[in-house]
């Protein structure tokens, strides 16, 4: 259960090696040790994350989870909820991909769409079903400002996040009567392994800063947040910039 001051007791991280996701788990664990389920493909990084969280007093379980293996999702979610209620679920897996390759190569584009959108929808449905039955809980989906307005430089990724964003925004409404809060988080440019070597956009941020935004959203039951917060106003303005001007912007 999430208590009166907003401390959860258990967290499921789908995308168990996601830097932002792990930073969020650590931010929660900073106040109180948690029961953590890390769902990801087995890797040394996953093992490292488990050890790191255990050293902070958390009880960590890892689950083999492959975003592309859609038909295994219900079973993975079933296992994640088998040991009791899950207070916070974070959907953090995703691929950035190379935009030039993605919009010219079918296979790359489809993989991006499947991981970032189809798989996110798939786990969203399965987790939503569990949360509905449990009557409480918080579901966090990592969207992106890239989904707010398509840009030439990363529109394939942006389109997948736009789909994810719309799905979880709707899920927010669908699950609200069941006592479940869905928070859609829209980070800007985050310095992670995924963005290594890329030129940072203005208002770029870190996984730890996004984690704080996630913690704050869960505690405050916020349904739509930007990281960093001022991006909300930047994006609001950018959405209305006429195309001839927008395409000339150095974004």
């Amino acid at each position: 259960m999430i208590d009166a001051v907003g401390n959860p007791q258990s967290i499921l991280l789908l995308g168990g090696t996601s830097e932002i996701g792990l930073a969020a788990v650590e931010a929660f664990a900073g106040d109180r040790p948690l029961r953590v389920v890390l769902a990801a493909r087995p890797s040394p990084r996953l093992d490292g994350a488990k050890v790191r969280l255990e050293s902070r007093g958390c009880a960590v379980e890892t689950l083999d989870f492959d975003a592309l293996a859609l038909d295994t999702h219900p079973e993975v979610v079933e296992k994640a909820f088998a040991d009791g209620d899950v207070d916070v679920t974070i959907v953090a897996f995703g691929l950035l991909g190379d935009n030039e390759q993605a919009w010219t190569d079918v296979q790359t584009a489809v993989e991006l769409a499947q991981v970032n959108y189809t798989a996110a929808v798939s786990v969203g449905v399965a987790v939503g079903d569990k949360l509905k039955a449990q009557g409480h809980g918080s579901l966090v989906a990592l969207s992106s400002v890239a989904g707010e307005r398509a840009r030439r430089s990363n529109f394939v990724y942006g389109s997948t996040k736009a789909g994810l964003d719309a799905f979880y925004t709707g899920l927010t409404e669908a699950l609200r009567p069941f006592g479940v809060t869905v928070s859609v988080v829209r980070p800007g440019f985050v310095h992670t392994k995924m963005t290594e070597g890329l030129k940072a956009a203005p208002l770029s941020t870190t996984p730890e800063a996004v984690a704080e935004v996630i913690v704050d959203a869960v505690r405050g039951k916020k349904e739509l947040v930007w990281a960093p917060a001022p991006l909300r106003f930047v994006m609001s303005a950018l959405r209305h910039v006429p195309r001839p001007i927008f395409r000339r912007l150095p974004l």
Partner: protein
Amino acid sequence: MLFRAVAPVDRRPVRVAARPPVAWAAMTSLPSETRALHGWGRTAPTVATVITPRNPEEVAAAITTAGPRGIIARGLGRSYGDPAQNAGGTVLDMTGLTSVHSIDADSGRVVVDAGVSLDTLMRRALPFGLWLPVLPGTRQVTIGGAIGADIHGKAHHVVGSFGNHVEAMTLVTADGTVRELTPDGPESELFWATVGGMGLTGVVVRAVLKLHHVETAYFKVDTEQIDNLADLMDRQTRDDEKYAESVSWFDAVTTGEHFGRGILTRANHATLADLTPKQRRDPLKFDAPQLLTVPDVFPPGLLNKLTGKIFSEAWYRKSPTRTGAIQNITQFLHPLDIIGEWNRGYGPHGFLQYQFVVPLERGDVIRTVLERVTAAGHVSALNVLKRFGEGNRAPLSFPRPGWTLCLDIPIGPGLGALCAELDAIVLDAGGRHYLAKESRTTPEAIRRGYPRLDEWRKIRATVDPEGVFASDLARRLELL
């Protein structure tokens, strides 16, 4: 945030239980509603299917057809945290069981339904010169809730807690069996596991209570204004036994030499001779109006250092030292009951009440806790300090000989960390938390504070082996 389901779809899965078909029919005819519930602190709401039974048969039917998330009884929702919530499961709104079956003016024995409030019972019993010996800070509490939390009042050092005054109770357990329990009868273990058992042993549907005889509904009150904490506790330690009721309020905002200055109020029931001629015309008058209801419009942060200081100053100044004042029940016991839904004043984020007890010899903890709260910059305006008398036999009953302190703190940044720090201080001193107020501690803190928890679990397991009774509190604190 409050939310209300629009469509009350009946989604309860059917639990396979050996039930006659009649009960199932009764069950399906019970109206249910899916809605969010929270405690008096307005924190951590969860959604459950709410059923309002009208009689013990309907209670039994609801219990035996509860789904996999279980069932819990709820009274008037005055617990601060989550004991009367059951996320994804069933919650029985017990306020549908409202009969006062009998009042025996000579013996003081009353037979009441569990959904009757202390307020209602008092209004009915007072004309017979009967008084509820245990009254907490509000009368808006049901009999069932009073037993489940084994509530206490300002008279604890003399009369003990609520369970001490229950002569018998009717409990519906997980298999739908209706049991008659007494404190010393064949199932006395279950009786005492139910007292303070937070509704997790079964649903109390009826109780026999023993009330006290009084001549008047007034108190003869001695008020002492004491300008620091050490003197306040010292005064409260001396001659407390001469008074039927004793409690102090203190200022947790002012620092320096007047740190913990407060008002000690102690009283005995007034006799006819104490009253003015006018009061004597109606000595059992129940003077407890509710003058206003707070609307749900307050922003967070209204209680801050400035307003807290103003409130504390005013509260301190309004009660100069005087002896023998005659006060009615509202003036002496329940000033907050004048205002309906006063918890809304804390704003949408809600608040928590931090209440603990530490052994008498660890009175120093009170000061340490206060200093920590003040140093952390949190503001608590309603602070209550009391010396408990002897506890009772119930394994999960909160009161034990010692000092109990109660703080109301609005939810704000850093409060979780502060409370965790206070937990360590309290537990290290051999203290424990009050489950009716609890909303954020750890299972470990409860295990340490209640060494008889396992004993209680065993008794519970004999009547509810499948875990039909469940609540958010039980899940959060791993009570089951």
